[in-house]
C-alpha cells in the first residue's frame, strides 16, 4: 500500500527529471520559475550591470578596458582603503562573536530565567538604522560623550572608543551581532546530545568539552552568522560616513560616485570590487558549511544538555548578561535620552527633559510612518511569496537552473544599497509609469521593489529552512488522495510552513523598515519618503535632532511590537505542532 502510493507520488517527479529540452513541459511551476527569473534579472541583474559597466570603460574613449582596475591597485589610498575595510569587517566579526557567544551559550546551556527576553532583546539592535545608532553611540561613547566626560572628570583619562576605525568596529559589531546570536543559538539547540555525552564518557568536560566538541558542532550556524556580519560590514556605508571615516572602500565608492560633476570611474571600480568580494565570501562560507554538513544530520536529542547553575556561577552569568545587554542597548538608551532631552551639548546628560520633540515629530511625520509600513509591508509580503516559491522550486522540483534562482536571489545580499539605488535610477528613468506619465524611477513603487530585492535573501533563507522541515510524505499523501499540485501546495505545504514564512516576513519587514542606503537615492518627493529618510531629514537641522530621535524611537517600537507578536505566534505554532505530534 505504502509502496504504491509513494511510486504514484513520484511519477510526475520522474517526468521532471528528464532534461527539459527533451520535454518542453511547461507546468505552472515552470511558468512561475521563469517569471521569478525575469523579475530577478530585471530588478537585480540589469540595474547592477548598468552601474558596473562603467568600471570597464576607458573614461577617455569609452572602449572596453581593464586599465581602471590597474589604476585601482596602483593607488596607495585604495590599497589602504581595501585593507581598512577588510580589517574592520574581520574585527567586527571578532567583537560581535565576543558579544554573541556568551549570550548564546548561557541561554542554551543553562537553565536561565529570562532566556526568551535575551533572545528578543538580542534582536533589537538589528532594527535600528545604523546611522541613528552611530549618532546615539557618539553621544555616549564619543570623545566628549557621557562615558568619557565622566571618566575624565573623575579619573583624568578617556578611552578612544569612537576614534577612527575603532568607532566603526564598535558600532558595527553592536548592530550586527544578532546575526551570529540567532544562528549560533539555533545551531547549539540542534546539537546531538549523544555526541556530548560520548565526549563526557571519555572524560572531557568544562572548557575543553566546549572547545573540542560543542563549538565545532555549532560551527555551521556560527559560520553562517559570521559570514553575514562580515559581508554586511564590508558593504556598509552609513556608519563610516556618519563617523567621518573615509579611508574604506564603501565610503570611497560613494564619495566618488556622488560628487558634483566628477565622472571618475574609480567609484564604479570599487562597486565591482565590493560585489565580487561579497559574492566570494558568501561562496566560501557555503563551501565551508557544505563540508561540515554531516555534523548536524543525525539528531539524537534536542540540543546540548541543560544544567542548573551554582549560586556563584549564577551571579557571574547574570553579571555578564546584564553587562552585554547594557552595552548593546546603549544606542537605544542614548536615543531615548536624546528624544526626551532639550539641549545635549558637552555634558554627560541632556540639560533638561521635555515632550516637545514628540509633538514636533508627530506633526511632521505621519506620512513617513505610513509610507514605511506600506513599503516594508509590500516588500516583505512579496519576499515571502517569492521566497516560498523559490524554496519549493529548489527543494521539490528538478527544473533546469533552479539552483541559479537561489544563487541569484541570495546574491542581492552582496550588492551595496548605493549601487542598487544608482542602478535603479539609470534603468528605470527611461520608462514611464502607465497612465501618469512620470518616469518610473521617481515612482514610489520602485522604492518598495528595491526594498523587496534587498531583503529577499533573508526571507528566502527562512522559507527554505521551513520547507526542509516539512516531510515529503505529507505531500505525497495529499497527491495520492487526488489533490492537484496546486491544491497540495495551498492546503498542505504553505500552512505547514507558516512559522518559517512568518519569521521570514518579520526579518524582511523589520530590516526593510530601517533601510536607508538604497532609498536615499530613490526618494523623489518627501511625500513618498520612508521613516529612515525622515529621521535623516530631521537630523540635518540643529533644532531637529530631538525630533529625529523621537521618530527613531517610534521606528524601534513599531518594529519591536511586530517582532514580539510574531515570536509569540511562532512559539504557539511550535507548541501546537509538538503537542499534535505527541498524540
Amino acid at each position, binding site marked *: 500500500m505504502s509502496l504504491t502510493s509513494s511510486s504514484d507520488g513520484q511519477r510526475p517527479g520522474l517526468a521532471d527529471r528528464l532534461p527539459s529540452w527533451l520535454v518542453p513541459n511547461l507546468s505552472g511551476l515552470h511558468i512561475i520559475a521563469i517569471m521569478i527569473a525575469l523579475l530577478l534579472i530585471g530588478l537585480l541583474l540589469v540595474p547592477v550591470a548598468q552601474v558596473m559597466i562603467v568600471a570597464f570603460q576607458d573614461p*577617455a574613449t569609452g572602449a572596453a578596458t581593464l586599465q581602471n582596475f590597474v589604476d585601482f591597485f596602483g593607488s596607495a589610498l585604495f590599497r589602504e582603503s581595501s585593507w581598512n575595510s577588510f580589517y574592520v569587517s574581520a574585527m567586527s566579526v571578532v567583537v560581535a562573536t565576543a558579544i554573541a557567544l556568551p549570550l548564546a551559550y548561557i541561554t542554551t546551556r543553562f537553565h536561565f530565567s529570562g532566556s526568551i527576553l535575551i533572545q528578543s532583546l538580542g534582536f533589537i539592535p538589528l532594527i535600528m538604522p545604523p546611522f541613528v545608532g552611530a549618532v546615539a553611540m557618539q553621544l555616549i561613547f564619543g570623545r566628549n560623550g557621557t562615558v568619557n566626560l565622566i571618566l575624565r572628570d573623575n579619573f583624568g583619562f578617556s578611552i578612544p572608543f569612537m576614534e577612527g576605525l575603532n568607532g566603526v568596529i564598535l558600532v558595527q559589531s553592536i548592530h550586527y551581532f544578532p546575526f551570529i546570536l540567532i544562528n549560533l543559538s539555533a545551531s547549539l539547540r540542534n546539537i546531538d546530545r549523544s555526541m556530548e555525552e560520548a565526549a563526557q564518557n571519555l572524560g572531557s568536560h568544562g572548557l575543553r568539552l566546549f572547545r573540542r566538541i560543542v563549538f565545532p558542532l555549532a560551527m555551521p550556524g556560527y559560520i553562517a552568522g559570521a559570514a553575514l556580519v562580515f559581508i554586511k560590514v564590508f558593504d556598509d556605508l552609513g556608519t563610516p560616513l556618519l563617523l567621518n571615516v573615509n579611508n574604506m572602500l564603501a565610503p570611497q565608492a560613494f564619495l566618488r560616485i556622488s560628487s*558634483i560633476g566628477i565622472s571618475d570611474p574609480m567609484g564604479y571600480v570599487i562597486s565591482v570590487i565590493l560585489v565580487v568580494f561579497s559574492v566570494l565570501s558568501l561562496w566560501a562560507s557555503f563551501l565551508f558549511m557544505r563540508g561540515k554538513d554531516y555534523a548536524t544530520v543525525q539528531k539524537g536529542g534536542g540540543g546540548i544538555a541543560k544544567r542548573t547553575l551554582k549560586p556563584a556561577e549564577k551571579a557571574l552569568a547574570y553579571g555578564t548578561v546584564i553587562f552585554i545587554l547594557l552595552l548593546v542597548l546603549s544606542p537605544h538608551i542614548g536615543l531615548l535620552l536624546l528624544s526626551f532631552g532639550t539641549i545635549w551639548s558637552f555634558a554627560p546628560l541632556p540639560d533638561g527633559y521635555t515632550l516637545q520633540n514628540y509633538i514636533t515629530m508627530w506633526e511632521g511625520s505621519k506620512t513617513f510612518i505610513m509610507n514605511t509600513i506600506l513599503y516594508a509591508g509590500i516588500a516583505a509580503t512579496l519576499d515571502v511569496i517569492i521566497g516560498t516559491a523559490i524554496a519549493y522550486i529548489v527543494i521539490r522540483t528538478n527544473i533546469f537552473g533552479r539552483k541559479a534562482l537561489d544563487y541569484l536571489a541570495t546574491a542581492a545580499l552582496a550588492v551595496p544599497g548605493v549601487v542598487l539605488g544608482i542602478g535603479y535610477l539609470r534603468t528605470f528613468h527611461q520608462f514611464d509609469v502607465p497612465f501618469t506619465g512620470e518616469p518610473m524611477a521617481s515612482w514610489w513603487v520602485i522604492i518598495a521593489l528595491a526594498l523587496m530585492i534587498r531583503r529577499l535573501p533573508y526571507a528566502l533563507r527562512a522559507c527554505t529552512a521551513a520547507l526542509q522541515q516539512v516531510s515529503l510524505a505529507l505531500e505525497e499523501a495529499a497527491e495520492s488522495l487526488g489533490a492537484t499540485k496546486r491544491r497540495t501546495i495551498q492546503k498542505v505545504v504553505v500552512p505547514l510552513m507558516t512559522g518559517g514564512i512568518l519569521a521570514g516576513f518579520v526579518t524582511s519587514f523589520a530590516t526593510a523598515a530601517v533601510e536607508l542606503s538604497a532609498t536615499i537615492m530613490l526618494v523623489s518627493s518627501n511625500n513618498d519618503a520612508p521613516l529612515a529618510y525622515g529621521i535623516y531629514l530631521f537630523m540635518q537641522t540643529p533644532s*531637529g535632532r530631538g525630533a529625529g530621535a523621537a521618530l527613531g524611537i517610534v521606528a524601534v517600537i513599531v518594529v519591536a511590537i511586530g517582532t514580539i507578536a510574531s515570536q509569540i505566534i511562532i512559539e504557539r505554532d511550535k507548541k501546537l505542532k509538538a503537542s499534535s505530534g505527541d498524540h
Partner: protein
Amino acid sequence: MRNAIYSSVAALALSATGALADGKITIITSFPDSMTGPIEAAFEAAHPEYDLEVLNKKTSAGVKFIQEIAGENTADIFWASAPDAFEVLKADGLLADVSIQSEGIPDKIGAYPLNDPDGKYYGFAGAGYGIMWNERYLQANGLEPAMEWGDLAAAEYHGHVGMSAPSRSGTTHLTVETLLQGDGWDSGWAQWKRIAGNFRTVTERSFGVPDGVNTGNFGLGIVIDFFGFSSKASGFPVDFAYPTVTALVPANVGVVSNAPNEAGAVAFIEYLLTPEGQTVLLDPAIMRLPINPTTYENAPEGFPNPFEDSTIGATVQFDVAKSGARYNLVNSMFDVMITYRLDDLREAVGALHKAEARYAETGNAEAKALIDEAWALIDANPIDEAQSLDAEFAGIFTKRRKKETDEVGERQAEIEQRWDAFVLDNYSRATELANKAAAL
C-alpha cells in the same frame, strides 16, 4: 489576502495621482526642512493656487539628479546655496531663461553680484562663512574663541577644529576658494593645510560641522553663518563670528530647463523676493541675511546687516569664473592633501607645534632651520596656480566624453596617485624633521 493587497495598492496609486494638481511646483533643494517649511507655508498662503513639492537632496546629489533626469525633466526649480552648483548646471544648459520682476533689490551683497549676469539664476538671501564655537567645550579646555582663519592654525587649537570637505558641500567649497582667492593660491593652500593640521575631523556633510560643535564633539567649526545663528537660536551653548577675509555670497534659486510648470516656478521666485517673502528668512530656524535692505527693520537685536556694516565680506572680490574653471580640481586637491591624509598631516603639524614650543625655550638656530624646512614641506603644493587654471589640465577632473573621438590625456586616478605620493612623503619627512628639531 492577495486581493486585499492589490486593492489597497491600487487605491494608493490612485490617490497619489489625484494629488497631482495643476499647480504643482517641484523644487530640488539642499535646504533643510526647517527652512523650506516656513517658506512653503507662507508661499502657499499667499498663492493658494500652487502646491509646492519639496525634494531635499544634498547640493551635489541635487546637481547629479537634475543631470540624470534631464532627458525627461520633472523638476521646476533648483534652490541651493552654492553659486558654483548653478554654474555647473548652467554650463550643461540645464537652467532656463526667465524674467523675474522684483522691487527694491540691490545689485550686490558685499562685493558679490546678486544675480547671474545671463539671468539664469537669482540670489534671494545672503550668507557668509565664519567660525562657530561651543562655549562649554572651550571653557573646559581653557581656550578662547578664534576670530580669524589664521588663529585656527595656532598650536592651542590642535585637534579641536572641524570642517566639511569641499567635494561634499558646495558651501564649504566656497570657503576654500574664498581663501585661495583672498590670500593667493600658494599662501591660501599653506593656510588651509596649517589649519587642517589642527582638525579633529573632516565631516562628510556640511551639517556635520555645526552638529559636531553643538554636541561638543569638537570645539570650533568652519561653517556658514546661518548654521551658527540657527544653532544658537535652538538653544545650544554656541556662538559665531565672521573673520575679516570672508565672502558674502548669495544663496540662489533658478528655473530648470523644460520645467513642467515654468509659470509656477517664476511665481515662486518672485514671491521669495517680495518684502513678505524676505521677512520669512528671519525665522529663528532659518536666519539667512535678507537681500532687501528694508527687511532689516524687522530683524532681531544684534543681527548683522551687511548693507550698513561694510566690514562684513567686503575684503574679497570673489571671481566666479576662476572658481568654476577649477571647481573639481580644487575639490580633488583638498581631498588628496587633507581629507584622505588627515592623520598624517595632523601628526606632522602636531610635531611641529611641539618643536616650536621647544624652540621658544632654547632659541636653537639649528632647530629653527629644521622647523622652517618642515613647514616648507607641508606648504608645498603639487601644482601651481597657472596649472590649476589650465583648461586642459582641469578638464581631466571633469572629463565627460562629448564625442566618440574625444581624447583626454591622463586619467584622474594617475594624477591623484602622484599627488598622494607627493604629500605623504612630504608629511612624513616634515614629521621627522620636527621630531629632530624638538630633540635639539
